[in-house]
């Protein structure tokens, strides 16, 4: 086993406030039956990385509920498997850790006691299909200390706050900026790193003794010259979920055949998620469904157009759902009209309600709301 992985589960809890009020970024529902962390975990498991630690800082009940023992990802193992790290207090004071670096320091003991040579550090704020075996191959071939995954292209708004790099022809990172300017062509960091485990241990020791605070600034940015840091160009599908607007837009991309094929077309690269044993979806006599992505366990009597339905959604007679994301166990009565609406889990919408948002600002209904 080459690598272990550490996943940061709370990333955009501020920028995507609505969806993370009661959950971590990692457990944001996506694409009918998934949570964001499913994509990161599936990528790792498909590359035979089966020792995975998940750093949870707050609101991680839903995450723990989703992950269970990890067996749905084949991560319930004697050697390795899934481990969740609840927060410990800061090593200097009594507050919860607040940075990526402090989080890593809090599990320094775990990192030291593992056997793997490499460590994958990954956010789970995006839907992607990273082939980690390919990343490891490049990491070993370039004899890198750290390999950082990036996307080359015009910097969209969502990657503005991310580090960006200049890279020489041997893929070595020669300089870095901590923020990008929108619309410039950049190599933007997607916050997935591969680092040699012993080096990481050393860097964490150093961080403790020198009181460092930032992973990006102190460990990466300041070491560009002194360490061999390489870039890995990830040019596959990348759906970044860091705002409500992006959340809506990227879910809706699943209605395009191209995105579906990219994500689900390779039968050797399955996306695993929690098994819920839902019954198949039942379409009634008056059902009318167009261009929609629908999970199991739904019962549809009404009309569904350009929408994503999660597991266990009920659509009443005469109800019309358009351009909406309807999460798990949402129940709509009869003659309800929804357009550009996101309902969170367990929402109940009684008969004859008419709700509408718009593409930029979809109307969002909190978990367990009843209208």
């Amino acid at each position, binding site marked *: 086993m080459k690598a272990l992985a550490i996943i940061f589960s709370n990333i955009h809890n501020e920028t995507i406030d609505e969806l993370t009020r009661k959950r971590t970024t990692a457990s944001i529902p996506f*694409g009918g039956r998934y949570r964001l962390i499913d994509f990161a975990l599936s990528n790792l498991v498909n590359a035979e990385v089966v020792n995975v630690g998940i750093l949870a800082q707050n609101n991680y009940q839903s995450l723990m509920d989703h992950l269970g023992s990890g067996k749905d990802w084949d991560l319930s193992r004697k050697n390795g498997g899934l481990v969740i790290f609840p927060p410990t207090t800061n090593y200097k004071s009594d507050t919860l850790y607040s940075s990526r670096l402090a989080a890593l320091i809090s599990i320094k003991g775990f990192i030291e006691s593992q056997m793997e040579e490499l460590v994958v550090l990954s956010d789970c704020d995006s839907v992607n299909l990273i082939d980690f075996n390919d990343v490891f191959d490049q990491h070993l071939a370039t004899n890198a200390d750290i390999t950082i995954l990036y996307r080359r292209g015009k910097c969209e708004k969502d990657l503005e706050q991310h580090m960006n790099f200049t890279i020489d022809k041997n893929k070595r990172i020669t300089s870095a900026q901590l923020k990008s300017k929108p619309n410039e062509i950049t190599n933007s960091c997607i916050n997935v790193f591969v680092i040699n485990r012993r080096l990481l241990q050393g860097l964490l020791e150093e961080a403790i003794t020198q009181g460092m605070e930032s992973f990006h600034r102190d460990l990466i940015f300041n070491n560009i010259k002194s360490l061999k840091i390489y870039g890995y160009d990830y040019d596959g599908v990348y759906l970044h979920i860091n705002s409500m607007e992006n959340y809506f837009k990227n879910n809706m991309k699943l209605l395009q055949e191209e995105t579906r094929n990219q994500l689900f077309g390779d039968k050797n690269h399955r996306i695993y998620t929690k098994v819920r*044993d839902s*019954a198949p979806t039942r*379409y*009634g006599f008056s059902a009318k*469904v167009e261009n929609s992505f629908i*999970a*199991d366990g739904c019962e549809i009597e009404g009309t569904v157009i350009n929408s994503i339905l999660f597991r266990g959604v009920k659509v009443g007679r005469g109800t019309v759902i358009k351009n909406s994301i309807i999460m798990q166990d949402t129940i709509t009565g009869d003659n309800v009209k929804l357009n550009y609406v996101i309902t969170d889990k367990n929402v109940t919408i009684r008969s004859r309600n008419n709700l509408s948002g718009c593409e930029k600002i979809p109307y969002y209904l909190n978990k367990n709301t009843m209208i």
Partner: protein
Amino acid sequence: MYSQKKCIAMLLAGGQGSRLYALTTKVAKPAVSFGAKYRIIDFTLSNCVNSNIDTVGVLTQYQPLVLNEYIGNGQPWDLDRTFGGVHILPPYQAKNGSEWYKGTANAIYQNLSFIENYDPEHVLILSGDHIYKMDYNMMLNEHIKNDADCTIAVLEVPLTEASRFGIMNTDDMGRITEFEEKPAHPKSNLASMGIYIFKKDKLFKYLIADNADPTSQNDFGKNIIPKMLNSGCKMQAYPFKGYWKDVGTIQSLWEANQDLIGDNPSFDIYNPFWKIYSRNIGIEPQYIAKDAIITNSLITDGAKIEGTIINSVIGSSVEVKKGAVVKDSVIFANTIIGSGSIIEYSIIDENVIIDKNVHIGHAKDTNSSIAVIGRGVHIFDDVVIKAGANIEEDVKKKGKEE
């Protein structure tokens, strides 16, 4: 938990199911697909685990590979237990020779030592080819309360159909007084469902005696039950009310699938407190395209529907291309139906490829019968397959064929 088990289940899953024709040439009947995402055995296994019966021996014999792989360690049914859980029990070689399971009773007889391992007080005998939801625990409680040697689950059937079943005649306390296998003139309408609970000691006694009898057919219905009745054992009938279907024929398999759809489906699989578990692999949700038309149907994960689906049950990862019409049919997993093809009143097995403009079956009416396409078959462009056909090999166009 680690002591004696109160009751363990033995599930008979070795039958060939020859009346399912092409559907069982390569798999045992309990492994045949059902209701879009299930296999027939899921219902019995789910009943076990929902009834807190955590030890199940599955007796296999005919074409067991798909079934063995499907059951695996039993994890999907929560039957991967430290002590107990689900175990596959094929025929084996013993010191004094080896033999196939000669009958239902013989299959259990050959695995007495498996039962002995758990030292249960009672043994539940099930068959893996029925579709129903039943709380075996309630039956067990009745069995214990009555202090019965054997309790047999019975179902009221229309008297006109009673002669197709094993019929129990009971006294007013529910004690079985007489058992008739497929009687010409049935005296009651209580049909045996093939679900028995025995006191372990009695079961052992009669199985050992049955094995020593060379004239016996080693069958529960034909030998063990009549013999116990004749020797005065206390045999109780346990009346079951609810949906129950023997899916041993193409017609009944088709009907049972239809019972999952309609305005008020006669068989409800949406009860969150009685889930039907099945082995799930990571498949994405279904996609319904812009021009698709779907009415009164059941569709599951991974399906891609561009055509028209009416009164049908569609399995996982099935693709129905543009202009294709599927009506009154059951399609099993991973089958592809090409554009312009019409499927009417048919059952299409797993991994079938149907090219363009194929016509299978005939509109459902009182005279037409169901067309069946077997596992992995390839039907080429423009082929016409008649109603009632049973196709096990690829069909290329050569005018009209069946």
